[in-house]
């Protein structure tokens, strides 16, 4: 008890600081900072650390954001342009208001690097092994990128005069401008990877490859178009060849109506290119629009631009009719039954046929491998089928990847394939064939299939390993007022119809930062400091990363309760889960 003045003023006071009272001794539970997996990250085929990318972008830290993307994916701007962002469908924020515009954020960060000419190259020490990569499409480039990071020397063999594969020849310029692609291919080339163009590879290459290489990655894609098997088929033009021609030369005007047969992304790309060349395309598809394998946003953009889609229409024959072509069409109806793939079965409506007069017909119903060696063997003991590639170890290890083996034919799945192949090859050389599956499983982002290169390179330090995906109910939504998703600027459909340039003007950095700040940052500490502000013992410490002073943490759990983003857990003292 202290007497503070001459007046009657006695009052209790300690003789030392209250820091002398180490409240940590009361604790039987302890809070732990964890990094859990965000649902977007788990949904991304490339396993991008999206919450971290969004957090860095929201603070204008583009360089670090780009570096974070590059840890798992060499194609930041490319994916920002062409990825169909399964991440956004998984975004927890969509259960509050609207999903984060992750694709736009990635595009913005990728474009920033191009504008600033930011091209980080950290070369890894060579391990003396060399890998031949066949095909310079997204899977081949990704495989070489990740292999070179693991110390492998890579030669990429490309049959065309320029690298890029489907990125260059299959995706029109309005979706993926050439400067974006060349900048990102340069990023890979600058790692010391040789891209040998105009090199058509045949089966005999595999017989002699062992002289120069310790492994081969086959990622040449599908070179042979699927036939429709209908009379007059040879009157139809090949859609992929058309897209290639358009990208090779200056597209010349095309008059009249063009029929495009198919329902995939290529059919939409062809149609939208035709619009830009002055033709009026009609997509002929035998099922309904909602059954089309093409991605919904692309279908909508195509329709805005004037592409007509005739659904439930099966071409029966193509006939020449003076200067034009006649396509005989069978009207179809939806059956109650489902196909093996779960789609509604369609059957012809008897007697309901019509003809369509067009200037030309394009066929875009898919493609298959050009040669048998491009397909992996199946069922043999020396063949290991993985989610995104097939590893054959009968002599020289050969890994087939990309569209040749992928279930989903997308750019990001091709990147996932290249990454998986690189990791599998490295595991093969270091730990042996038998370890490949288990070692890959240890690098999964949550339950996979996406793999993390960060985890593979440094499993101890990796922040990407938490098996649990943050659920919406784990988010403390009291801290997230609803906010509008960024309205992305698109050129007017009328303007889009005359131009092959990108129809998405770059968004302002301010608006983008604001959008990135909408991210819940599921499962990662973004230093919001709620824990620090709420801690009754002021035991949460600032620093590079937040930490807890265990001398004073009494284990009340308030910090865990108030963490907005599920980046903390309460563990029983002495029962560490190791997270």
């Amino acid at each position, binding site marked *: *008890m*202290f007497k*503070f*003045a001459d*007046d*009657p*003023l*006695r*009052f*209790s*006071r*300690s*003789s*030392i*600081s*209250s*820091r002398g009272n180490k409240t940590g001794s009361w604790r039987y539970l302890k809070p732990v900072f964890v990094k859990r997996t965000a649902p977007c990250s788990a949904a991304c085929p490339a396993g991008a650390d999206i919450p971290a990318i969004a957090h860095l972008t929201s603070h204008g830290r583009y360089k670090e954001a780009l570096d974070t993307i590059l840890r798992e994916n060499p194609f930041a701007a490319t994916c920002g342009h062409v990825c169909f962002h399964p991440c956004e469908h998984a975004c927890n924020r969509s259960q509050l208001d609207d999903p984060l515009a992750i694709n736009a954020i990635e595009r913005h960060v990728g474009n920033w690097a191009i504008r600033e000419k930011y091209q980080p190259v950290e070369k890894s020490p060579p391990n003396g092994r060399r890998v031949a990569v066949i095909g310079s499409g997204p899977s081949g480039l990704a495989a070489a990128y990740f292999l070179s990071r693991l110390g492998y020397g890579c030669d990429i063999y490309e049959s065309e005069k320029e690298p890029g594969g489907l990125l260059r020849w299959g995706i029109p310029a309005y979706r993926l401008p050439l400067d974006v692609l060349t900048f990102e291919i340069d990023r890979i080339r600058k790692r010391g990877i040789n891209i040998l163009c105009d090199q058509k590879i045949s089966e005999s290459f595999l017989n002699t490859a062992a002289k120069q290489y310790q492994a081969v990655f086959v990622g040449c894609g599908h070179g042979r178009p699927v036939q429709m098997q209908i009379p007059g088929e040879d009157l139809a033009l090949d859609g992929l060849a058309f897209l290639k021609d358009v990208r090779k030369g200056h597209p010349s005007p095309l008059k009249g109506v063009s029929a495009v047969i198919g329902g995939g992304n290529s059919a939409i790309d062809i149609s939208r290119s035709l619009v830009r060349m002055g033709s009026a395309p009609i997509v002929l598809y035998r099922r309904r629009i909602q059954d089309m394998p093409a991605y919904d946003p692309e279908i909508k953009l195509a329709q805005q631009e004037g592409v007509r889609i005739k659904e439930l229409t099966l071409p029966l024959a193509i006939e020449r009719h003076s200067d034009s072509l006649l396509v005989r069409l069978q009207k179809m109806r939806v059956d109650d039954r489902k196909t093996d793939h779960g789609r509604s079965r369609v059957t012809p409506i008897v007697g309901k046929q019509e003809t369509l007069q067009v200037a030309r017909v394009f066929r875009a119903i898919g493609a298959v491998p050009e040669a048998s060696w491009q397909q992996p063997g199946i069922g043999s003991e020396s063949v290991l089928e993985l989610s995104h590639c097939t590893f054959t170890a009968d002599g020289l290890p050969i890994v087939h990847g990309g569209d040749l083996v992928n279930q989903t034919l997308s750019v990001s799945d091709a990147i996932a394939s290249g990454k998986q192949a690189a990791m599998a090859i490295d595991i093969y050389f270091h730990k042996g064939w038998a370890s490949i599956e288990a070692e890959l499983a240890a690098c999964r982002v949550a339950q996979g299939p996406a793999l993390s290169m960060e985890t593979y390179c440094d499993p101890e330090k990796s922040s990407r390993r938490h098996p649990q995906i943050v659920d919406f109910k784990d988010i403390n939504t009291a801290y997230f007022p609803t906010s509008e998703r960024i309205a992305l600027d698109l050129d007017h459909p009328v303007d889009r119809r005359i131009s092959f340039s990108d129809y998405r003007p770059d968004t302002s950095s301010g608006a983008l930062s604001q959008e990135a700040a909408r991210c819940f940052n599921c499962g990662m500490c973004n230093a919001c400091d709620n824990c620090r502000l709420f801690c009754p013992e002021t035991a949460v410490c600032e620093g590079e990363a937040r930490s807890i002073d265990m001398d004073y943490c009494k284990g009340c759990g308030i910090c865990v309760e108030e963490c907005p983003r599920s980046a903390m857990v309460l563990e029983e003292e002495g029962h560490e889960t190791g997270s």
Partner: protein
Amino acid sequence: MRQVLEGSHAVSEAVRLARVQVISAYPITPQTHIVEAISEHCASGKLPAKFLCVESEHSAMAAVIGAASGGVRTFTATSGQGLAYMHELLHWASGARLPIVMAEVNRALAPGWNIWVDQTDSLSQRDTGWIQLYCEDSQEVFDTTLMAYGIAEQVNLPVMVILDAFFLSHTYEPVDIPEQERVDRFLPPIKPKFMLDTNEPYALGQMVAPGEYMEMRHDIQQAMDKVPERLERIEQAFEGAFGRRYGTVEAVSCDDADIVLVVSGTVSSTCRQVLADLRSQGERVGMLKIKMLRPFPADAICHTLGHVEKCAVVDRNCSFGAGGIFAQEVRSALCNLQDRPLVFSYIAGLGGRDITGDTLMDIYGKTRDTDRPPKQSEWIGMTS
């Protein structure tokens, strides 16, 4: 300079001129205008203070307790339910001997939900160790707020400056607002007798054993006992600076009175008019306005009422099961006097009902015409 001000803003102006350093409050009708104006002063830089927005009155009081422990001049304001919610921390503020000043706008307690005047809220807190000063008009509110800092910082006890809801808080009156320099001369910066010090850290309010607790409590009682004398000195200084004084009680025409009306708050003004009317009719009536309820000015009350035949205490409050609270206090002050008046207890004006001149005339008439006070408080103006 004379300004026409709302009662609430008379408080805000006093807080500004007192150079308060930390304000924390939670809005509640009819108090809100007070802190609203202060927050504007803080935002505009007119008052370079920290305004802490909190989520409750409990936290507001906790925040000013923290700030006052750091040795700065603090302010908060509340009303009715908000004051009730602060209860635990009111004890802490006085027990910790912190010179906090709070404006408390008397508001009826719910249920029935009622935002109008009633003294039961502040009188429920009479045992918390706070000095309580009830004000009659806006000028008195302004002056009392400035003097409250003087007395609080001298005796290290918190002060409630109390004003009637709406009749005072929301009524515009001319108020003399002095220049900053004059206020500064009257009220120099706080000189805390103790404060938390980060260079020599220690904790305040630690555990105290039975062998010492009673001494601490005795000190609070002794500090309270010193208030009348200290306040008298402060009032002298205030009168010297600004020409006004109030006293802990104010007796009007009591010297030759047979009956004295005992009132508080804004009813005092109404009573002054009633007194003039009755005096002009030849009635020997006086008025005693009680300004300070804690510490209770028993000596001044005995001095004024000792020779009187009857007194009529008007209570805008009720301690259920016991009656008007001012009447109880007056009775207990008088009970050991040899000659003492009969104490009539009236309850009127609860929940914002007006206490008019007629109400007071009625009370005066009943007191004059009744020989002995009834055992219980009489409720005035009941409709059924």
